[in-house]
């Protein structure tokens, strides 16, 4: 199903065509004539999104993704999920739940930002909460900047983003850049092997810029913004998904008192909860594309420059694919083998979220029997860890949705309470 409309971008009308059918959206996501290169003055100019991987199109996009995807291969995913994250998770939670009353949004971001910064290539001290909060400050700024098309005050967002980008570069990127550049130079001189180079996005970009003009990375600012994109992408959406998972799980657990314990005990169930959450609460409910040329989607003619809106939130509830209870939270729902449990929430096609397997792990096997190589995704680990510590809604403080954009699945505050630590409970 599709419908047409018109929006004003910088005072000139642009045809908008909205699709809300699952198959039509999948077709659109693979259409080579639909790009994420929106009107530059509205979206990219003066914004942290200018020229980043999620915006560039065609050969440049492909070249960047090939270089950057080396950090998302199975061996790297396994290292992060099985070794690095478990080591960080419990230590961080010990420190962040001392007060018992906690804003889950901030907690989720702090848990996520440590490894997101590491993958991006930003040196930091994971023990230094002040430094982690500073990184989260940039994540929040970049998240607002990336949602500028849905912003209620785009000029204010652009000004805020410019300042954040400059501070981010000075405080985190340049110091990390200097050490990595030195390592890359030593590698080029043959003084160290490839295995001794840091494994992160910044190093990958520095090692390849100059060797492939299709990367379009001659401008230092692009490298800075690219690294910021990975920091933001690896932090903000994971925290939002954790909150949405609990927001769906709390009422479900009231109806089914054993559910919490089962999720804590069964990591594959925790993963299915995360996937079901993503289906019902996609962090980007409406994906947008621009027509680079006249094209066709699901038989509909799309004129050049039209804005194509892909209503993922509606398509994700298609009863034909997800059953008659598609609007309900049911992490055990049966699905056809070729339908993803997260539906279209990671997008698809060339721009599919590169962090899909980081946050959500590998697809859940239809048998519900994972093999030894299966990864569950970092959000499932976070979910189990906070449930194990007795997380529950704070009855005295209401949760607050993020109303700065029209992305209604996002929260700015989600107050929760945790149990006292076990050793403090009287015998």
């Amino acid at each position, binding site marked *: 199903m599709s419908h047409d409309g018109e929006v004003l971008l910088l005072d000139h009308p642009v045809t908008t065509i909205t699709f809300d059918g699952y198959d039509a959206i999948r077709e659109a996501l693979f259409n080579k004539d639909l790009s994420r290169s929106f009107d530059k003055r509205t979206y990219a100019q003066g914004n942290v999104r200018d020229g980043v991987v999620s915006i560039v199109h065609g050969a440049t996009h*492909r070249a960047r993704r*090939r270089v950057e*995807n080396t950090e998302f*291969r199975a061996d790297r995913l396994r290292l992060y999920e099985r070794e690095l994250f478990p080591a960080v998770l419990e230590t961080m939670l010990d420190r962040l739940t001392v007060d018992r009353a906690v804003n889950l949004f901030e907690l989720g971001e702090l848990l996520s930002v440590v490894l997101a910064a590491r993958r991006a290539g930003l040196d930091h001290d994971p023990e230094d909460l002040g430094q982690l909060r500073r990184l989260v400050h940039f994540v929040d700024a970049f998240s607002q900047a990336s949602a500028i098309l849905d912003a209620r005050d785009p000029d204010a967002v652009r000004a805020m983003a410019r300042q954040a980008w400059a501070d981010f570069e000075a405080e985190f990127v340049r110091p990390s850049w200097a050490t990595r550049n030195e390592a890359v130079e030593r590698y080029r001189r043959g003084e160290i092997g490839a295995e001794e180079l840091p494994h992160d996005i910044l190093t990958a970009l520095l090692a390849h810029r100059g060797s492939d003009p299709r990367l379009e990375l001659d401008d230092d600012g692009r490298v800075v913004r690219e690294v910021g994109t990975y920091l933001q992408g690896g932090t903000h959406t994971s925290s939002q998904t954790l909150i949405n998972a609990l927001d769906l799980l709390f009422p479900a657990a009231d109806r089914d008192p054993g559910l919490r314990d089962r999720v804590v005990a069964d990591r594959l169930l925790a993963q299915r909860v995360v996937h079901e959450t993503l289906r019902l609460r996609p962090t980007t409910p409406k994906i947008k594309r621009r027509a680079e040329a006249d094209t066709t989607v699901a038989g509909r003619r799309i004129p050049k420059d039209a804005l194509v809106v892909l209503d993922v939130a509606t398509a994700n509830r298609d009863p034909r694919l997800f059953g008659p209870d598609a609007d309900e939270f049911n992490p055990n729902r049966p699905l056809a083998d070729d339908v993803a449990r997260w539906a279209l929430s990671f997008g698809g096609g060339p721009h599919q979220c590169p962090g*899909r397997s980081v946050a959500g792990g590998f697809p859940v096997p239809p048998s519900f029997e994972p093999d030894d190589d299966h990864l569950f995704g970092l959000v499932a680990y976070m979910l189990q860890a906070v449930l194990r510590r007795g997380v529950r809604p704070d009855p005295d403080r209401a949760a607050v949705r993020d109303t700065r954009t029209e992305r209604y699945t996002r929260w700015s505050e989600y107050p929760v309470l945790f149990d006292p630590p076990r050793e403090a409970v009287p015998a």
Partner: protein
Amino acid sequence: MARVTVDEELCVGTGDCARIAPTAFVVDEERNVSIPLAAAAEADIALLLRAARNCPTQAIRVVGDDGTVLHESA
């Protein structure tokens, strides 16, 4: 015997196909693209189709021994 090809104009080197079907695909680490191995022709068709369906850019084409296209690339 299946005929398996990877469209290098589409592949973005996630390595997912090599993870799912390691006997059929390998990542060329120089170019960061996936390439089908000779053994792909003998690989389990169900596994090949799983790798093809999972490919985020739909770069993999699988043709059955009777010439039927079992999975088309994008």
